[in-house]
Structure formats: C-alpha cells, structure tokens
C-alpha cells in the first residue's frame, strides 16, 4: 500500500529595503548606474574604512517587524559572517545572528482551504553583496559593487507551510505588507525579494521532521511552485526506494525544471560569526516603537473591508483595487476629488488597468493625477461629454496627465446640446439617407442606430447621443404620421 506523505516547508525570504542610501555608508541605492559608481571606501572594503549604521534601515526593519507581529530585541547586535567570495568586498558580511532585531511573529495567510497563521522565527538586518560578471569573451570575471551594502532584511519563517499554494499566499502577503509599508518594492524578478525554500517530507501522522533540503534560485511564484512540487516528489521517491534524503543546498533550474545539489551539510561553511567590533549595539527606545506602531499604514485587508462597507463596492472590485498600495491610493484620491467612489472604482478597474496591461506597465508606473480623473468623472456626470469622448480624454490623462476640462474645450469635445443645431443635423441626415429612413419606417429598427451614428459623425462625435436619439425619433415618427 502506498504511504501518505506530508510536506513541511519553511521559508527564508530576503527583502531589499528601499532606503535612499546604503546600510553602512552614504552611497546611493539606485538600481542601474555604471558599474562601481555607487561606491565608496566603505562598501568596497577599502583598508581602514568603517561602517556607520543608517538609522533609516533600522526604522524600515522595525516597521516590517511590527507588521509581522514580531517582538523587538533591544539592544540588537550586528555580527560578522565570514566567507570568501569576490562579490563580498570585506570577505565578511555584516549580518545579525545572536541578537536579531525582531523575533517570534506571525502572518495570517488565506488560501482556498481557509485562513492560517505562519509563524515568523526571526527577522534580521544585513548588507547585500556586489555582483560578479563573468565575461566569457575575455575569460575573466569582473565585480560590480553598486549593490554591495544595499540593506536587506531576512525573514525566517517556522516550518509551518504544507503546500505550494500556502507558500505563494505567504509570499504574496509578505509582498503586500512590505509594499503597503513602502519599505520595499519586493520584485522577485529583479531580486528585491528572494526566497529560499526549506523542505522536508514525512509520513502523515508522524511527529518527527524529516531531513530537509534548501532550494535556491527561485525567481518567480511559478518557479517556486514548480520547485516545491518537484522537490517534494524527489524526496518521496527517495524514501519510497528506501534511500535517505541528504541535508544539502540545491539550486533550481527553472528552464530544465529540476534541481541539483550545490553543497551538502558536510561541506557547509563555518561562518565564524562574532559580534562586529566596529558597530555599537543598537538600542531601540520604546517611544520610537510606539511612534512606529501608531504610524503603521492601513493594510490591504483593512482597506478591502472599508471599501466594501463605506463605498459598497464588490468583493472582486476591492481585491483588484488593493492589489497595490499605489492603485488603492490613486483610487482613494480620485474618490476624494469627485465624491463618486463607484465611478472612480470603475475607471480604475476598467480603463486604468486595461491601459496598464496593454502597455505592460507595473501599477507603480501609473502616474496621473487623481484630480484629473476626478474632474473627468464630474464632467461625464454632468453630461458635458459623452462616454466615447470621455475614454479618449482619459487616455490623454493616463499618458500625458492633461487637464481634462481645458483639453475638452480646446479639442471641441463638449457635447452639443443646442437643440436647433442638433435638429438641423438630423434633418440633413434624414434628407441624405432616404433609403434608410424608408427601411426604418418599414419597421427595421436597426437602421435607427445607423442614423444616430451618421448624425454623431457629422457632429464630429461631440453631440449628446441621448439628445440625438430623441430628436431623430421625434422627426422620423412625426414624418411617418404625415405620410
């Protein structure tokens, strides 16, 4: 009989913090830039250079830790993790081992099978390494220290996850929290969020944990899901064959959809951790924590609840609107300007997301002023412009952030409401389309739409379609009476 297995998963997630300067020097953290231009003696490991802690990093880490319901260690300490690699200019990484800034928290996740808490073991601050570039052409390796010293937090979970779906839900939740806190943009593809998966399997019903492996190089949610399933199957297969799982670090190759062993526990490095004598213990005052607690933002869940209650929006709509803090912010501000939350939501979910998708834009790249959309919504509401034109104007707002009322005037898009003018246009159309008129009178309702369209065209689209309809109907029906 085939045994039933349970998968036990814990995660180590690195999140790049979005401070303007690096963790131990004043260099810029900006992405890109010519190699080794965002560097100084400190982040290139020059002899005699010393680290100075960026207080913003502590603040961001604390905000993250508080959002993860963690306890805070005060004081916390920095330790040196010693290992030789050229991307690591000092050949030690400044990290936290003995007294990390945060510990013992949790996050609540929701999957198809319900809600669940994932416990956080600890969260610590550390510095990122530089980047090695292997130049095949000249057969040499080059190193770029722009990334060296970029602040990171590492969030270590307890082995509380059981499925890939839970892992993805956990990561999405972390990402949402970090984005709402504005401490990180958490892009897996760009490496501002990196996840290592610790996985073991055990027979269902047993209590002892099996031997785990650590999986690295997971660059997307899809890759994570595939890697978890693959590794689970691999381990079960080993156990079924009566073989042992070896404790090791493995690297996932998403193209080939398999992993290979990088190093086993036996050749695990001894990092010779010890407290960094160049840095002082970090004392975190209770008042500061209190201030940070009070100033936590409204997170996605709270917003969803409020939007449904306050604005009467659907569950589906609020899910879309809160997918990014930026989007939610645009929505809220637009609502503030026009006072019409439903219309604002429609414009956000409909046109805004459509255009963003068309252009392959991230939500964060959407940059129009909510006041302009708010104005447009009001103009539409007053019937000063028809829907078709409104969409055109919105595209201009979306791409160029134009001022809608001015633009509408300049481009003659104001709906013509002058009955005389409209009547004249309708007369002309009736005269030019005798065949269609005839068909209409014979009962072909379809041709009515055609005649409306023709009238709109002569008005260059700027007529109020409702009025056109009304006048056309009047005229056609009246004539019909005479005949």
């Amino acid at each position, binding site marked *: 009989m085939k045994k039933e297995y349970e998968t036990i998963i814990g995660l180590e997630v690195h999140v790049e913090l979005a401070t303007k300067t690096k963790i131990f020097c004043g260099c810029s953290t900006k992405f890109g830039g010519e190699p080794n231009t965002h560097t100084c003696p400190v982040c290139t490991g020059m*002899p*005699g250079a010393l680290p100075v802690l960026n207080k913003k990093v502590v603040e961001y880490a604390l905000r993250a830790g508080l959002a993860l319901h963690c306890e805070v260690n005060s004081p916390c300490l920095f330790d040196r993790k010693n290992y030789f690699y050229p991307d690591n200019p000092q050949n030690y990484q400044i990290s936290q081992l003995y007294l990390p800034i945060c510990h013992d928290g949790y996050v609540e996740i929701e999957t198809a099978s319900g809600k669940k808490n994932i416990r956080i073991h600890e969260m610590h601050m550390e510095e990122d390494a530089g980047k090695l570039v292997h130049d095949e052409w000249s057969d040499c390796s080059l190193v770029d220290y722009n990334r060296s010293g970029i602040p990171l937090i590492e969030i270590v979970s307890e082995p509380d996850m059981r499925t890939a779906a839970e892992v993805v839900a956990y990561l999405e939740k972390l990402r949402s929290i970090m984005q709402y806190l504005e401490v990180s943009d958490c892009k897996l593809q760009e490496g501002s969020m990196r996840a290592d998966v610790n996985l073991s399997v055990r027979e269902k019903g047993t209590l002892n944990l099996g031997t785990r492996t650590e999986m690295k190089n997971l660059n997307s949610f899809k890759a994570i899901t595939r890697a978890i399933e693959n590794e689970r199957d691999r381990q079960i297969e080993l156990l079924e064959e009566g073989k042992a799982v070896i404790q090791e670090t493995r690297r996932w190759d998403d193209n080939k959809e398999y992993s290979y062993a990088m190093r086993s526990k036996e050749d695990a490095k*001894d990092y*010779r951790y010890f407290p960094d004598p160049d840095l002082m213990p970090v004392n975190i005052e209770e008042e500061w924590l209190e201030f940070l607690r009070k100033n936590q933002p409204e997170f996605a869940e709270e917003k969803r609840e409020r939007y449904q209650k306050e604005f009467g929006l659907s569950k589906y709509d609020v899910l879309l609107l809160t997918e990014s803090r930026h989007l939610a912010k645009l929505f809220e501000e637009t609502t503030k300007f026009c006072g019409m939350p439903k219309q604002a939501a429609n414009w956000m979910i409909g046109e805004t997301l459509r255009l963003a998708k068309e252009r392959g834009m991230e939500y964060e790249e959407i940059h129009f002023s909510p006041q302009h959309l708010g104005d447009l919504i009001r103009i539409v509401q007053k019937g000063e412009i028809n829907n078709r034109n409104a969409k055109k104007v919105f595209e201009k707002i979306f791409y160029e952030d134009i001022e809608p009322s001015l633009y509408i005037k300049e481009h003659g898009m104001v709906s013509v409401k002058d009955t005389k003018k409209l009547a004249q246009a309708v007369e002309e159309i009736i005269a030019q389309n005798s065949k269609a008129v005839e068909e209409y009178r014979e009962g072909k309702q379809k041709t009515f739409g055609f005649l409306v369209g023709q009238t709109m065209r002569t008005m260059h689209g700027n007529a109020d379609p409702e009025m056109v309809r009304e006048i056309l109907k009047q005229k056609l029906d009246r004539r019909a009476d005479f005949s």
Partner: protein
Amino acid sequence: MDMRDMTAMEIGKEIREGRIRVGEAVEFCMKQIEEKEPKLNAFISVCEKERLQKRIAEVEQGIKDGVYQGGLAGVPVAVKDNICTVHMPTTCASRMLEHFVSPYQAEVVRRLENAGAVIIGKTNMDEFAMGSTSETSAFGPVKNPCNPEHVPGGSSGGSCAAVSSGECFYALGSDTGGSIRQPSAYCNVAGMKPTYGTVSRYGLIAYGSSFDQIGPIARNVEDCACILETIAGYDRKDSTCVKRDVYDFMDGIKSGVEGLRIGIPEEYLKEGLQKEIREAVKKAAEWLKECGAKIEYFSLGLTEYTIPSYYLIACAQASSNLERFDGVKYGFRAKEYEELHEMYKKSRSEGFGMEVKQRILLGSFVLSSGYYDAYYLKALRARTQIKQEFDKAFAKYDVLLGPVTPTTAPPLGESLKDPLAMYLGDIYTVPLNLAGLPGMSLPFGVDGKNLPIGLQIFADCFQEKKILRTAYTLERAQQRREQ
C-alpha cells in the same frame, strides 16, 4: 638653539614667530633621514620632494594668513604606515600592500593637515601591527637609535625610532596591546594611548578593532598633550568614537600632583621584572610623593588572565579584519593561479608574513564553531571582569603607576625565536587595551647597558589629564635633578 634638541612645540613656536621657516624644519628632518635611515630603517616611504615643496608653500601661506594657528603648524611629522594617506603608499609593512595607495585620507591625517602639519613620511612597523619588535616588517627590521644592536620595540617601532633619532619632531603610532607605549619605552620617547574612542579609527587599518587606538609619540609630555588635542575629536565615520566632554588636554598640565592618589599594582613589580625597572618605578613613586601625591601599593586582580584574553580577542578580530586582503580589489595578487580558490590561497600565502599568518590561524580557530564559546566568549567575559578590577582600583586611585615592559629593549633577532615569551612581554601594557584605559609611557632613566627605561602612567577612561599632570611632574623632576 639647535633644532636637534627642540620639541615639536618649540619648533612650532619658532615657525609661528618667523625665526625658522617651515622649509628649514623640513629640510632638517630630511637631512637626518638621509643620514640615519641606512642604519635605522625607520621609514617605509618618505614624501616625494615635489609634493613636499607644495605642502611647505601651502603651510607657509596658511600660517601667514592665520589659517593655521595651532602649536603644530608647520612642524614635520611622521605617520605610522597603517594610517591611510593619499599622497604616499600605506603598506602596513606588508608585501600584501606594498604598492597600495589609499583612495582616501584617514581622519587623523585630515586633522593633522587641518592643523598645518607637514607629513614627511610613513614609518616602518611590525607587519599589520602584529609584533613587539618591528622585526616582522616585510621591509626589514627597524633598529633602536639608542643602540642599533637592539630592537626599537613594536609595533610602532618606526615612529618611535624616528622621533628618538630626530628624523621628525613627533609621530603618530597605533596601540592595540602596547604598540605605542612599549617602543616609546625602548626608544626613550614619550608615547600615549588615549582612551578607546577618543581618536577616530577611520582610516587606521584595523588589527584588533576593539583595542586599536591612534596616539602621539613625541619628545616630551607637553608635545603629547598638544598632539592629542589636535588629533582627538568625535568622528561620526567611526561608530566606536565617543563624544567626550574634555578635549583640552594641554589645560592644567602643569598644575602638579598635590593630593593626587597614586596606586602601584604589586603584581606589576613581581618576578620577571628587570631590577632596574622596578627601582625606577619606586624612585618615581618617591619623587611623586615628594611632590605631594599620596602613594599606595595595592593588589590588582586577574593580571594573569590579561595576556590570554587579549591574544584570543585581538587575533579573532584580526583574522576577520584581514580577510579583505585577498588579491581581488587591491594589493598583492599571486602571479600564477588556476582558479579563484587558488588565487586566494596563493595571494594570502605569499602576501602575508609568518607572524600575521600565525595570528590569523589562531584567530580563525577560536572563532570556529565549537570553539567560539570556549575561547572567544570566555575571553570577552574575562575582559569584563578585568575591567571591573580596574573600576575597583579607580575608586581608590586617580592614577596608576607601573613599568611599561618587563625588560629594556632586547637585542635584535632574539624575540621572534620564542613568540610566547614575546607575547608575555605585553603583560603590563595589554590590560589597558582590554579595559579601554588611557596610558602613557614616559622615559625614566636607563639601565646598566644604557638602554632606556619607560614608566607607565595610566588612569581611568577619559582621565588623560591626570596622566599628563603626573607625567609632566615627573618629567620636570627629572630635569631638575639633571641640572
């Protein structure tokens, strides 16, 4: 008056008052260097003529314009070669950094230059400041100017020899376990290690980060105070730097020792101490008593634990501090290697000398997993207790008095044969580094072989002024007796 007999402050005064030109003072030193270097080997680099001429002109103009008004304006100075300078290489007396020119200036160098100092050269030392004789230099041993058959002490042997021989008027050294005080004693000059955190370590190539302090080496006590005033100060680039209340080290230096409570640790006078040095300490105590101080002998606990604690902590930190010397970014790289690992191995094997390798190995060992608690943590605990012993002493005494070294300068070539004996020679100096205390070595007569004897005067943290007062009193007492 011959420049040969002048102190730094006397030269400074002559320069300010226009009796000696900056160029003449520099010229005098250059001549001494030319004459004495073949024998002494106190310098690793001497400033290029062109650069020197430029600096002399700059300083002369600055003095005229009133930019440089301090006591050291225009006075030639030598700097230990583990302190980073942009105009001259900074080698740490190691093949590893033979051609290394720092891209930035150490904070102390910046302070010296802001005071109008003319840096004429970089002094020889034990490689990476590891040694007590200045014989571990990759560029040959330094000789003691008082007797060239003997070592000048170390690791700041070059700085002390240069001041003693008249090659410069004062110098900077660094003290991790006695590296300023011990060679000062051997070379008949005054040298001071300030309270840890008083002088910025930014730009000092680290050996034992928790102990390293830069300090003055000069011909008398007043010079030391004046130099300390110039180089001390809070620096935010060094997180271990302290914001002190007191920086006016010259103030009250001549106010005598009336009523000062001076303690002499009995353990410092026990077996293993050269008889003439013991007598010198006792004689100094008598003289101080005559000047109104209260003298008391007392027992200082835990002295036997200082050497092992110090070497464990210093070597552990050194093993990590010296990891950055890997041949990747700067400094020595082996000529032939197959791959990365071999490049590291060969570069470090060929670039570092024996003593450095020995301490890296010792340090790596005590930090490795399984030994960290047993060695490193235990040493840190011992350190805390040693500090408490001093706290007890300073509840009773303002100043402590004792020897600097167990013997006067040993002959060349003896010490390295028995490194353990050499390490034990640091018995009187190391406790101050462990506890962060300030201390001074004051020349106090000679032994039967005409080799200089040093007195160690030390006090609680931030009490440099008491040390200077005591030292000045003793210095005057000696001068009166000589007359």
